């Protein structure tokens, strides 16, 4: 009876942790979404909300850390269970970083200022980049729910797409800066925003690797062999 009881309490604690991860994930997704919306619509009120919401993720990470460490000390989990707890700590750290990056994008909204000064194509590009990063984050967190790691190969493909999109935006921004020195300040901020969004995609990829490790106990296969560069560039319809 005693041992059964311990197993149950352990399960409950683990379940609580993954629930917290999901809630943190939901907040992170929302913050990224709203920070880009604030940027594209030059909406300082929404930007302020995003900056404030970051505290939720900071607090979430602290709580997950404390609970996970307590759980390891108290229950001394082995094998799969240990992977699960360590994984939770890693994922919450990545989500907290995603929140920081979204907050940083939101903070730049005021500095970029009037969005009609830059060409609309720039904002459409940023939106497309954010859509890719958000899709990555969403699908990765969906795998955390479904545990179907066999489908996780999509992560590498999209990672490449995000890189290609970022590189393209980078060049476009440089062009505008060279065209007119007055563009330099706003375009520098936009450049950092693009970089932040690209890194949000990287954190999503980290989370995918962690999930793969939790479920299989192995490292996610690093990279499929690359053919010529062009065939890596895939525009997903989804």
């Amino acid at each position, binding site marked *: 009876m005693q041992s*059964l*009881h311990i*197993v*149950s309490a352990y*399960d*409950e604690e*683990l*379940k609580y942790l*993954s*629930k917290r*991860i*999901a*809630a943190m*994930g*939901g*907040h992170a*997704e*929302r913050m990224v*979404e709203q920070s880009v919306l604030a940027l594209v619509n030059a909406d300082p009120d929404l930007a302020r909300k995003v900056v404030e919401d970051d505290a939720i993720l900071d607090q979430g990470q602290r709580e997950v850390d404390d609970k996970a460490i307590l759980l390891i000390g108290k229950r001394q989990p082995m094998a799969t269970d240990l992977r699960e707890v360590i994984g939770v700590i890693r994922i919450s750290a990545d989500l907290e970083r995603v929140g920081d990056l979204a907050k940083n994008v939101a903070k730049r909204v005021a500095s970029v200022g009037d969005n009609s000064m830059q060409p*609309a*194509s720039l904002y*459409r*590009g940023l939106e*497309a980049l954010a*859509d890719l990063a*958000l*899709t990555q984050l*969403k699908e990765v*967190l*969906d795998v*955390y*729910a*479904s545990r*179907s790691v066999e*489908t996780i*190969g*999509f992560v590498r493909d999209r990672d490449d*797409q995000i890189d*290609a*999109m970022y*590189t*393209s935006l980078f*060049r476009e921004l440089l062009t505008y800066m060279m065209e007119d020195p007055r563009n330099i300040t706003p375009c520098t901020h936009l450049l950092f925003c693009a970089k932040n969004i690209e890194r949000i995609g990287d954190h999503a990829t980290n989370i995918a690797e962690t999930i793969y490790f939790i479920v299989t106990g192995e490292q996610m296969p690093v990279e499929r062999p690359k053919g*010529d*560069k*062009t*065939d890596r*560039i*895939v*525009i*997903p*319809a*989804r």
Partner: protein
Amino acid sequence: MRTYRSYLPDIMADLSDRQKYGARRFMRNLWQARWLLAVAVAALFCVQFFAGMPFMVLPAAIVALLLAAGISGDATGDGEQSRAAAEAGELQSLSAENLAAAVTDPLIVFDDNASIIHANAAAIAAFGDLRAGMSLQLKFRAPEMQVLIDAALAGGGSPSADFIDKLPVERVYRVTASAVGHGSRLHVLLFKDQSEARRIDRMRADFIANASHEMRTPLASIAGFIETLRGPARNDPAAREQFLHIMQNQTGRMARLIDDMLSLSRLEMKPYLKPGARVDVKQVVESVVDSLGPLAKENNLVIERDFADGPMEVPGDRDELYQVFENLLENACKYGQDGDRVVVSIARTDKAPQPGIEVTVRDFGPGIPEEHIPRVTERFYRIDSETAQSRKGTGLGLAIVKHILTRHHGRLSIQSELGKGSAFTVYLPAN
């Protein structure tokens, strides 16, 4: 993950409920047998009185009698009860799922642990993988959904929330959680789609913003030519002819812009496909090739076909897929002018994520610089918009292609090498 132990509290709660229920039933049986019992007790008294039974036997006999009456009634009651339960169970297991399937809005049944018990087809179509046992809170992570699910589990009332899902296409739902029956451990989430009204607003705003922005350039150019025609070029027939020709091109482009913007808006209005319809890809591609024959000829191109054998059917909308291949082939003919041919191939593929059909449109034109490849599906994105070919374009063709493919769960991949040409490959899942 769930152990026997973690089920115990539920079972215990169940048991104590059953005990209470049992006691009630016992009393009811006694009440039903009251006349019989009265007669029996009277008889006992008679027996004692006449036969001089030992005094202590009487109360014991009465207790035994009462118990027997209560329990025997219980037995018959149990029989009926279990038959009824079996029927109800059959009804439940049969019709609950059918009932859920008959609901056209997404519907999810879940238990006290927020584990999914059942998701109907509409829910799976809207949200993807929702297998039984999956945690609802891990899948629906949006803050408003977390609050809603917690409220539903805490019990009391039917909490509801507005849930906004941004990807892959934006959807807005009014979600209501309610308990199934009284004291049951099951709950239902029902999603009512509210996207339509929101989309109409958005479409209007987008259309106005885009139209005013994109029309400004051709309008300014036309206005400029009119001015010249009325002023300096008034008496210059050669210039007049040339300017009128340019103006005609500009009005043509404006008309195309309006057409393309409308068709994109229309697509955005209804983000889901009608389910059920199947399309013969080969036949659609064939008719696109036929209809673009004149354009190819005009550009001195031959369109070559490389079709694999056998039927090539996919679920989808014929008119929309027609638009996809038309836009791709038109681009190949427009931008691939330097080549002498365009190759359209259709093949089956078993590549991930699932078997499907691949249609590739390949041209041998100038190709697309690497840094532009990720961007060409964005709205109004045109590379080098000053060249003669792209001056006529709207930059919406590939945005429309991408949109339609999203609805078909397909994808577009672009391969291109400068100086050698480009290949646009459409993948469509076969099921």
